[in-house]
Structures are given as structure tokens and as C-alpha cells.
């Protein structure tokens, strides 16, 4: 489906004691179904606000956000969230962690859902660890558990808020590959925010470059690589060219403001 996620001139104001801050201004962009899109922008430009708006945790001041042609309202279960840290609950086993969402939505007796949980664990090499506590797992495995926990609620759209920034570089590259693989295999639409251009490049089909605050769309770059995985894409000859395009687009802005 074309334009699965749509932002139509969305603005958002934060209220603080001293003033009103416009975090997002007339933001318009779209992401197609099963596409992996990334938002890059200077730090503090309101990337996380955009994710919260998409998740329905914040309501736009003006404009509208559509997912599959339906307006995003509060609490309608369309999106899954992945954070900078995995936020696994230490007092729960891996199995209890991934079924957390089912438990909350009182679906944890549903044999179909439980079978799905088992299937995902087996598919992604975590089945043997289902009775372990999160602290017994490596950083990369924990991030995978967090992803499966999110997938369990069958979100139409995955939101990734710099989900790898807490990992060391080597793990990061590998987990990146891993998460990308899972998202593609499960055929999910994903929206990643990152300030790491190469990470965004290696994972995305589309990159949305934002201006500094208030965030609006500066440029949308559709990518096509011969390489298939994030790691292979990094070796692609196009990679450097794309990097430069996006870097230019970002730094133009910075020079203007400074």
C-alpha cells in the first residue's frame, strides 16, 4: 500500500512554564507499507516527539496523522515501540517478558497467540533461553527479545527510537542486521529515528531529513541498493554518495543556524 503512514502538515507545541515551544512545524511525509523509513535530523529537533505523535501518545496541535487511511487516535493498538534501551523487566523471564503485552490485553490464554510466541522464539534462536532472566542474556539477544515482545502485539507499524544506541559498535552492527532481518521477514512497516546517518542508510528504503527545531521535512531520499543486508549495504558503492547527499542536507542547515 502506498502512503501507509501519512503526516499531513502536522504541528505540535510543547507547553512550558515560560513559553510555548513549537517542536514540529507543518510536517508532511509518508511511508509505504512494508517500507523501512528513517528520520534523521540534528539532535533536539523533535524526532522523539514525532514518534510519540505517531504512537498516539501525543495529539497533534494541528494537522493529522493517518495509518492505513485511519486517523491516529489515542490507544488504538496500531504501533509497537522500541526504545534506546531494551527495557526488559528483570523480574520476569524471557517468556514472561515477551508475553507481557498479551497479559496486559488479557490475551495470554489464547493458544494461537502463545503458539506465535513460541514460534518467534524458536525462529530467532531464543527458545532455549525462554526461562532465563534478561540479565543472563547478551545485549544483542536482549534487543532481539525486546523486538519480539513488540511484535507479539502484531503492530501495523514499528517505531524504533535509536534502538541500538546503547550497544557497543560491533554489537550494534550485528544487531542492526538482525533486527533488519526480523522486520523484513515479518513484513513490518518501520519508522526509525536516529542521528547516525550510516545506520539510517544501512537499514532504510527511505530517509526523511528534518530541519532543526521546529522540525519540518527538508528532503526525502528514496534509496536503492544492490546489497541486501545493512552490513552489505555499507559496502555498496552508492552508500558514500547517499551519505554525502544526506550529510549536505543536514549541514546546510547547521551552517545557517550557526
Amino acid at each position, binding site marked *: 500500500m502506498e502512503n501507509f503512514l501519512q503526516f499531513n502538515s502536522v504541528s505540535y507545541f510543547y507547553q512550558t512554564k515560560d513559553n510555548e515551544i513549537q517542536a514540529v512545524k507543518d510536517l508532511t511525509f509518508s511511508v509505504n507499507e512494508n517500507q523501512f523509513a528513517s528520520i534523521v535530523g540534528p539532535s533536539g529537533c523533535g524526532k522523539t516527539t514525532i514518534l510519540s505523535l505517531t504512537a498516539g501518545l501525543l495529539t497533534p496541535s494541528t494537522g493529522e496523522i493517518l495509518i492505513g487511511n485511519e486517523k491516529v487516535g489515542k490507544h488504538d493498538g496500531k504501533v509497537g515501540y522500541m526504545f534506546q534501551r531494551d527495557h526488559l*523487566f528483570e523480574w520476569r523471564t524471557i517468556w514472561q517478558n515477551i508475553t507481557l503485552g498479551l497479559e*496486559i490485553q488479557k490475551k495470554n490464554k489464547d493458544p494461537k497467540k502463545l503458539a506465535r510466541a513460541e514460534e518467534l522464539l524458536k525462529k530467532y534462536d531464543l527458545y*532455549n533461553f525462554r526461562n532465563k532472566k534478561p540479565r543472563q542474556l547478551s545485549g544483542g539477544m536482549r534487543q532481539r527479545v525486546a523486538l519480539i515482545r513488540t511484535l507479539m502485539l502484531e503492530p501495523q507499524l514499528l517505531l524504533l527510537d535509536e534502538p541500538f544506541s546503547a550497544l557497543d559498535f*560491533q554489537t550494534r552492527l550485528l544487531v542492526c542486521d538482525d533486527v533488519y532481518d526480523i522486520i523484513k521477514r515479518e513484513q513490518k512497516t518501520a519508522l526509525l529515528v536516529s542521528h547516525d546517518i550510516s545506520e539510517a542508510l544501512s537499514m532504510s528504503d527511505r530517509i526523511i531529513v528534518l530541519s532543526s527545531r521546529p522540525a519540518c521535512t527538508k528532503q526525502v531520499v528514496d534509496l536503492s541498493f544492490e546489497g541486501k543486508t545493512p552490513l552489505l549495504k555499507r559496502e555498496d558503492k552508492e552508500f558514500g554518495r547517499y551519505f554525502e547527499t544526506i550529510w549536505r542536507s543536514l549541514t546546510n542547515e547547521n551552517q545557517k543556524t550557526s
Partner: protein
Amino acid sequence: MAGILKPFGEVLPMKTKKQVNFSQAHKKYIKRLKQEKILVVFLQIFILALLLGLWELLAHFEVIDPFFFSSPSRVIKCIASLIAGGEIWMHMGISLAETVIGFIVATLLGAIIAILLWWSERARKVSQPYLVILNSLPKIALGPMIIFWVGSGFSATVVMCVLICIVITIISLLNAFTSCDQDKILLMQSMHASKFQILRKLILPNAIPEFVSVLKINVGMSWVGTVMGEYISSSAGLGYLINYGKSMLNLDLVMASIILLSILAGGMYFLVNLFEKRKQQ
């Protein structure tokens, strides 16, 4: 297993198989650990024996006045006669009952109040100055009022105990509840958890380590409450015995009561510790 290690290229922090063949260096390391442990226990016992021995000798040769300082042998004799008299079980039982009741009431009530304050941000803001003042107020100052309100003896002591424990319980637990990671709450919200579910599945289990440390603090605090309560007004209990011994100038009795008190308090702390270890498993 190999398949799991492969995509990450990092060593997993756990081993599924226990190592059987140890190197010489490892054996040495284990031996050193054991020796260290033995040495620590030995020193602990040695210091106790040294202090008791010194105390006994100094009292025996009247370097210190045994009338005021008592001595281990006199304390043991005193405890033996207390046990022979039989009344000591009643005193210990009453103090223990007061402490345990005060401890449980303060912990439960404090936890309930902390939950309510977490639930309502407004209630939290409104109650803050009261909590601060109650926390800094020496609760013993309320002693005379307590006697008039609930009568002297057992109930006054329990109330004193509760007052001393409850404020710190509320403050520590509330702090643990409100310091829960915002992203974790966001995660729960993105799964459409209700506020009650957030409380039950995230806030409460997340605060368990803090809860255990509150329990440990409350063991000490509740004994303070009991002894203070018994000092102010009582006709039974170890605090009463200490006070009685003081007025009769029977310092052996005072020392004996203190020893029994520390055995009971130590025992209670030990139980809480056991609970903590259970929880960790």
C-alpha cells in the same frame, strides 16, 4: 547453542555447562577465597572473645567498678536467674509482639499510603510538606499525647513503633515508585496498559529491592519505637526491664536486657535477610 553465539560474536555471560577441570591457578584462587572467609569469621569471633575477656578481667580485678559496668559472668548469672524466674519470657514476648505488630502495621500502611500518593500526583504535592515535617519531627515528642490517646502500655508502644517506621516507609517507597524509568511506563502505555496494570506489573515489582531495604531499616526502627514506647509508659517488656533495672540500680539487669534485646533484633534482621535471599532466587 553454536547458532546463538554466531550472529553476535560475543561471549555469553553464562555457561550452560559447569566446568569440571580446573587449572592450578583456579584452585589456588578458590583456596585463597576460602582462607579469607575463614580468617574473617575467626577475627569476628576473636574480637568478641577479646572484648568479653577484657571486660571480665577488668571487672574481676576491679579496674572498672563491676557495680556500674557489670561483667559477662554477672550478666550470664542474671540471665540464668531471669530464665529460672520464668517471667523473662513474658517480657520478651511482649516486646517482640509490640515490635512485630508495629513493624507489620507500619510497613503495610506505609506501602498503601505510598501507592495512593503515587496514584494521585495532586495528593503527592499536597502531602509533601506534611511528610517533610513528620519526617524531621522526633516522634518521641508525641509520647505523652499517645498515652492520652490510646492509653499506656502495649497499645501506646505499638503506636510509637508505627509512627517511627511509617514516615520513612512512605518516603522511601514513594521515591522508588516515582523514580521508575519513564520509558518503561511509555512502553506499558504503548501496550495500552491501564494505570492499575502499570502499578501491578511495573511499579510494584520494580520497587522490590527498595521494599526489602525498607524492611531492613524498619527492623531497627521498630525496635527503637518499642524501647522508647516502653520507656515512656509500660509495665512489661525489655524496655521496661531496662528502665526498672536503672531505677533499682541493678545494672546487671540492664545489661542482660540489652543482650536479650540484641538477640531478638538480630534474629528479626536475619529473617528479613532470609526473605531477601528467597526473593532473589
